[in-house]
């Protein structure tokens, strides 16, 4: 149970903090796509007896870079490319799994998350990857900020906007991978977008937006897990629902603030 709370806290904070970039760069669909595509990696890793993190990680990173490439070079619209590639990868995962006689992977736990199944090793992996993502984000803080607001001018002044975008996509892929066990493939995109979208309503400064988003993510993660225990509900779904409620409170709060301001 303690492991589940640590995981919920880490995943809540990391997803929501990175979600700031997802919301500001309008990458929500990409997050959803990476999560679905990584399912193929999970199944392949399982069939080969390899570690889940390695299988899902490789597929997620490759697809993240793939989209980055389509985004930059492709003549296909980005949302079309994602729609085609990721549903295809997701279908491949289901196809491979359905050919197994014995259904020993629990499909539901990957689709909707099963935070209580997180073991000691998983926690260590989650902590290590979360620290890595945080470290790279801090290192590239200025470049990520400038290229999020104005990639063209950042590029003209000598920053490599393209490289920064690829790095960000890889960081997002890692963030998604460590969140899958907690909230599942279907709901991870919500945790990337919802707290950051709520924070976006509440502040006009970038670093504050990230801070508020991380706080809302932490509340959603820990609070949602706690509630799910009492309500005997799915932990992933409860976490996301709590984040959604916080989002609507934030919108309501902003309306009240502007109404009072006038």
């Amino acid at each position, binding site marked *: 149970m303690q492991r589940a709370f640590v995981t919920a806290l880490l995943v809540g904070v990391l997803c929501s903090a990175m979600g700031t970039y997802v919301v500001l760069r309008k990458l929500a669909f990409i997050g959803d796509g990476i999560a679905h595509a990584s399912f193929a990696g999970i199944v392949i890793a399982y069939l080969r007896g390899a570690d889940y993190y390695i299988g899902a990680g490789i597929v997620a990173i490759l697809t993240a870079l793939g989209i980055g490439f389509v985004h930059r070079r492709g003549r296909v619209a980005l949302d079309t490319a994602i729609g085609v590639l990721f549903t295809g990868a997701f279908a491949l995962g289901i196809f491979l799994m359905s050919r197994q006689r014995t259904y020993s992977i629990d499909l539901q736990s990957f689709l909707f998350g099963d935070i209580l199944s997180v073991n000691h090793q998983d926690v260590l992996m989650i902590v290590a990857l979360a620290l890595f993502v945080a470290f790279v984000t801090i290192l590239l803080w200025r470049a990520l900020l400038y290229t999020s607001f104005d990639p063209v001018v*950042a590029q003209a002044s*000598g920053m490599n906007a393209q490289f920064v975008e690829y790095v960000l996509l890889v960081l997002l892929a890692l963030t998604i991978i460590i969140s899958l066990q907690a909230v599942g493939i279907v709901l991870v995109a919500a945790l990337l977008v919802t707290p950051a979208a709520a924070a976006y309503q509440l502040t006009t400064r970038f670093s504050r937006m990230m801070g508020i988003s991380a706080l809302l993510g932490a509340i959603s993660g820990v609070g949602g897990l706690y509630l799910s225990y009492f309500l005997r509900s799915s932990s992933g779904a409860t976490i996301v629902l709590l984040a959604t409620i916080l989002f609507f409170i934030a919108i309501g709060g902003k309306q009240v603030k502007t109404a009072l301001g006038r």
Partner: protein
Amino acid sequence: MNGQIGSTAVAVHDLVVCYDNHVALDGASVSVAPGEAIGIVGPNGSGKSTLLKAIAGLLTPYSGTVSVFGKSPRALSAGVIAYVPQVEDVDWSFPATVWDVVAMGRFPRLGMFRRFGKHDRAAVERGLELVNMRDLAQRHISALSGGQQQRVFVARAIAQEPKLLLLDEPTTGVDAKTEEALRKVIRELAARGMPIVMSTHNLERASDWFDRLVVLNRRVLAIGTVDEVLASGAYAQLHGHVHVHGHGERHQHDE
């Protein structure tokens, strides 16, 4: 230190740039000396923005060369070129104040590890001061008028302390006061030796703005001092041509 700075700061030679199937620039050549402010005029679609983007290293030419201080633009160290695009290109609801955006101008030189220090703060202040935006430093960027947004971009470019300044129609949608402030900034920077390339649609008082003028329509039709270019008739001819052409297009559209 960064390559030799000779008598040309920017050298564009026989530049051809294509987008998909249409040719935006078809053999344009321009050179800019240090301390010289050059104005680029020409009708819509004449390649003004394309020329600026090519000098900024944002485009890959089909053929021809661009060199800035003797190097390819992308080989320059960070912070050398400051580019002021047309304002509509960014998301103005981004969570940032005027100060935050102008401070971004310091990022290329600071890189990953250098601290944002006293000198950086002073550069931001100076940028804001020059465009008369100091009072609005703490305002969120969504609360700015079009002219103020333009000034923020100019302030950011100045705060960068670049060696080359490129501006794309910075006077569009700007009031007369801002326009005059901008003109003074440009003259002051040029007087201190900075090369400046600026596109504009407005020829009024051009000789107060620019040392030389380029008339562009996919290639350079005329280049010289403002008086020389006006006397050559290239601009007037182009203007007449464009007017007729534009009218014809509109007519077609109505059908």
